[in-house]
C-alpha cells in the first residue's frame, strides 16, 4: 500500500480538472453544434427571428414566385387593401 500517494496538485488535477474538462467538452458539443445547425429553430415562447419567407411549389418557378415577401408587398400600392373584397375568401384562423 502507499502506491497511491498523490500530492495536492495531482489530486486537484485528477478530481477537479478532469471532470471540468469533460463538462466543457460536452457543453461545447451540445451548444456549439446547436448554434451552428438549428439557431433559428422555432421554439414556442421564444422570439422568432428568421426572415419572412413565402413558398410556392417548385413547378411555378416563375420570377414572381421567387421574389421575396418584402418585394411583393412593397410592390402593392397603399390603397390595395381597400380593393380586397372581404368575404369572398374562405378559410380558417387559429392560434396556439
Amino acid at each position: 500500500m502507499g502506491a497511491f500517494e498523490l500530492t495536492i496538485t495531482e489530486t486537484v488535477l485528477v478530481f477537479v480538472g478532469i471532470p471540468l474538462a469533460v463538462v466543457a467538452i460536452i457543453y461545447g458539443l451540445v451548444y456549439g453544434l446547436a448554434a451552428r445547425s438549428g439557431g433559428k429553430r422555432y421554439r414556442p415562447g421564444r422570439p422568432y427571428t428568421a426572415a419572412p419567407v413565402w413558398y410556392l411549389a417548385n413547378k411555378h418557378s416563375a420570377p414572381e414566385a421567387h421574389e421575396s415577401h418584402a418585394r411583393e408587398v412593397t410592390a402593392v400600392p397603399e390603397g390595395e387593401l381597400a380593393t380586397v373584397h372581404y368575404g369572398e375568401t374562405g378559410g380558417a384562423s387559429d392560434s396556439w
Partner: protein
Amino acid sequence: MTAGDHATSARPDVLEGPFTTPQLLRIDEALRTADDSTGLTFSLYVGDLELPVRGYAEKLHSQLAAPDQSVLVAVSPNQRVLEIVTGHDARRRIPDRSSKLAALSMTAAFGGGDLAGGIVAGLAQLASQAGRS
C-alpha cells in the same frame, strides 16, 4: 422585412428562413403534391403578419397569380397565429369546416415547436379534402 433587398438573392433569402434543407425539401414536396393532385395552387407564408392579421393574409392571398384557385397558409410564429385563406373556387373544394380542421392539427404541431411537421401535415390534409381535379 429585411428580406429581398437584392432581387437576385432569392436563394439566400429562402435559406434565412426557419427551416433546414431537409425540411424545405419536405415542404416543397408537400406543396407540389398538393398542387399536382388538386389542380389548385397552394402557397405557404411564414413570417410576421401585419394587423389586422386576417386582412393582411387576405391581401397576401390576393397577390397570388390566380387567387380564386389558390390556398394560402400563413403562419406567424411570433404572433402564434395561423391563417388559411381559400379563394372563391378553392373554397368550394375545401369548405371552411375542413380548413378549420386542418388548422387545428397544424396548431397542435406548432404548439410543440414543430413548424415543418405541422405545415406538411396541414397541406396534406387540405389537399386530400380538395380531392382530385
